[in-house]
């Protein structure tokens, strides 16, 4: 069975996100001052072949922990759907 995954990797909430802060600042220049607390992370998509959803989930979790996310500074979440 083939699955698609959508993974979000975000900077930890307690950490300063300079990129998000700079973009938040620019909202004022657009006349959108009511938009605040922008935080910027990464959106990763992938495809995986696995016998079932549980195994696919476990493998993606492994990939996140080992490479896609550095859990010292980021956290991740993902959604899985059948292809």
């Amino acid at each position: 069975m083939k699955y698609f995954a959508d993974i979000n990797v975000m900077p930890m909430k307690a950490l300063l996100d300079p990129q998000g802060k700079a973009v938040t600042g620019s909202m004022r220049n657009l006349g959108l001052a009511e938009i605040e607390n922008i935080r910027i992370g990464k959106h990763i998509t992938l495809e995986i072949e696995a016998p079932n959803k549980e195994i696919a989930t476990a493998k993606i979790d492994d990939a996140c922990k080992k490479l896609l996310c550095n859990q010292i500074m980021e956290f991740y979440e993902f959604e899985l759907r059948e292809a």
Partner: protein
Amino acid sequence: MKFGVVVFPGSNCDEDMVYVLRDIMKQETIKLWHKNTDLEGCTHIILPGGFSYGDYLRSGAIARFSPIMNSVIPHAENGGFVFGVCNGFQILCESGLLPGALLHNASRKFICKNVYVKVDNMNTALTNSVPQKALKIPIAHGEGRYFADSETMAALKKNNQIIFKYCNEQGDVTAEANPNGTADNIAGICNAGKNVFGMMPHPERAADELLSNTDGKFLFESILKSALVHA
């Protein structure tokens, strides 16, 4: 004693490091290509600065899985000397050989300039011959803001693992002297075993008379002295 400077795709301080070790310090030095796994008898492994793998995903994240790291990690775990500068420091953090992580500079700017650092622990293989004064050494990075959770920070302090702190020209560790928002003015750390070292400033860019700045040379002199002591 034999130095091995690892070359990753995107390393760009490898030549400077080899030049300082071979031509200035007169040491046997070779380059180690990242795709190999043989350390070729090197006792001292250096991970140089640069932009390994284009800094894709996170600085150092992909280099950490290069084949050579399968030999560098056991070398470090067996007490072997490993020293990472700038991107090398980031790779060591990503590999787990050093605690913590290096975040984007608080200013979001890539900072390339001379800064001052002060040794916080003189009793290491990288700092034993460094005078107690502010050393002028350049930094050149976009992601040098050291971060670790409070538990790790407490352990670093307790074990004297903080080896360099950013300071002003007078040697005072102040908030103004912190170039990138790094925790506790940290510019460099070592592991608990005191054999793995990482720092953001570039001592190899400050070790030649021709550059009118040789403050970085004290670090290389320390390495040689330490190796002689343990020989």
